[in-house]
């Protein structure tokens, strides 16, 4: 039996890698993908808990997270496309029209 803690460490690792990706990458699309990584990290956690606690909520929540992730990705990409039309860039360090 794999200890639950292993899963937690794995999930935290994936989550953190997502965070690092978010913080480091320039390309907006990759940043969105990093967010997906973070969500996946959470999902691993939830599924593992669901299994170990013998409770369906974890899986249900995962289900919803995937749904929301899809919606988020769609909207995010739509925004990127709208932006791309106006500014023709997908790099976050080019997007600082507003500051201060």
């Amino acid at each position, binding site marked *: 039996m794999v200890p639950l803690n292993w899963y937690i460490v794995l999930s935290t690792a994936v*989550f953190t890698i997502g965070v690092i990706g978010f913080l480091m990458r320039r390309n907006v699309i990759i940043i*969105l993908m990093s967010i997906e990584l973070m969500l996946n990290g*959470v999902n691993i956690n*939830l599924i593992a808990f669901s299994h170990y606690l013998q409770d369906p909520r*974890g899986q249900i*929540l995962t289900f919803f997270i995937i749904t929301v992730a899809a919606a988020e990705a769609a909207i995010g990409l739509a925004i990127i496309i*709208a932006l791309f039309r106006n500014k023709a860039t997908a790099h*976050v360090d080019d997007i600082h029209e*507003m500051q*201060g």
Partner: protein
Amino acid sequence: MNFQLPDIGPVIPELVMTGLALILLTAELFIKNKKVLAFASSVGVGGVAFTLIGASGTTFGGMFISDGYSTFFKLIFFINAILSILISVKYIAIEKVNFGEYYSLILFSTLGMMIMASAADLIVLYLGLELMALSTYILAGFIRYDVRSNEAALKYLLLGAFSSAFLLYGISMVYGLTGTTDLKAIAQFITTHGLTANHSLLLSMLLIAIAFGFKIAAVPFHMWAPDVYEGAPTSITAFMSVGPKAAGFAALGRVFMIAFGSMQFEWTAILIPLSILSMAVGNIVAIAQTNIKRMLAYSSIAHAGYVLLGVIVANNEGLAGMMTYLMIYAFMNIGAFAVVIMLRTEGFKGEDIKDYEGLAKTHPLLAAIMLIFMFSLAGIPPTAGFIGKLYVFMNAIDAGYTWLVIVAVIFSVISAYFYLRIVMYMYMREPKVEVSISTSPSMNLALIVTTVAVLAIGVFPSIVVDLAKAAISGF
């Protein structure tokens, strides 16, 4: 398998709201005059407000709760929605984004907020939050030909998703620790198993707090707010400076008071620095702003700090103070944005503070109204803003946080500086450019309502205070 239809009594407002949004979405295809949609949506929301009456109770296996607390917040959301719609009508035409989806999205977002306010389960809460957030992302980027609007939407979305990932991580850990996502059950589990001092639980609570902190734009999770407020369509800035913030507070209050009720000491310790930082950063940085939308964004950050005092108090009175404050804030902030919107005309942004120079000379009435809102935001009686602050401060002092209140009042003096600077520009400078304003009946209505409300609540605070007290009594 026996499928039983749950009691839908408590969710009737949400259902009606969804129906209304869907109808509008469909009607948009047929109705060319978008004003009709605006009218329909605002009247519709008003109608939804009536369904709040009697819609109380718990349903969906305890996931959804409709009580005084949620009802009061829903009232705020409705006011927010109606006023935002009223101030949008002309504005979105000027911005050339006069699409019917606009109104439906506002309603969907409001629906999300309603769900957040009523959520008794972290899953529902999360979904409500996302519904609200996603709709707002779209609205923020609604002027899609404008790069600033795009940027606002993108920043909002990226950071919003980032923060909700943390929220999810927190929820997952809570789930792992307690085996449930139901708020009451969590609370019970924590007390029975003595998890109060458990570090994992503290961490997850912290992460949840952060997500709410993001929604209410509390420092240091406020960074999105100025940029998004500035870039988003002004009517949406007004909308989201009140709605999502109130919803965030609604969720914050419910989750922390119920689920983490036994860990009050810990979470007040988290919220106090957030509150102080919000007041400090919000008020101080606002001084240097020259764009009025941005300035109001910082002001809204600062106001989050004051409202947090209500939560920090951690009792029903405190929550009542918070609710009162938010209700008042809805009126005065949307009112202020309404004035900002009025300055937006074809080919004229009207966002720079300099555009307000001499407004009292060219448009005395508008200037006077703005003056009332500015004084209200600064918390000077006899305006409503004072009542909000007073109530929150009263509760905080009652709970022994006198020092915190002293900090708060000192920052409120600093805030007076930049609010009054607007008044100064309007009244004490000569107009440099000829400013014309865009009026419309709906806008006038919104201004009348907000002004009257700000003054009336200022003089007769019982209107709101009694309501809040009554609302919180069954919490």
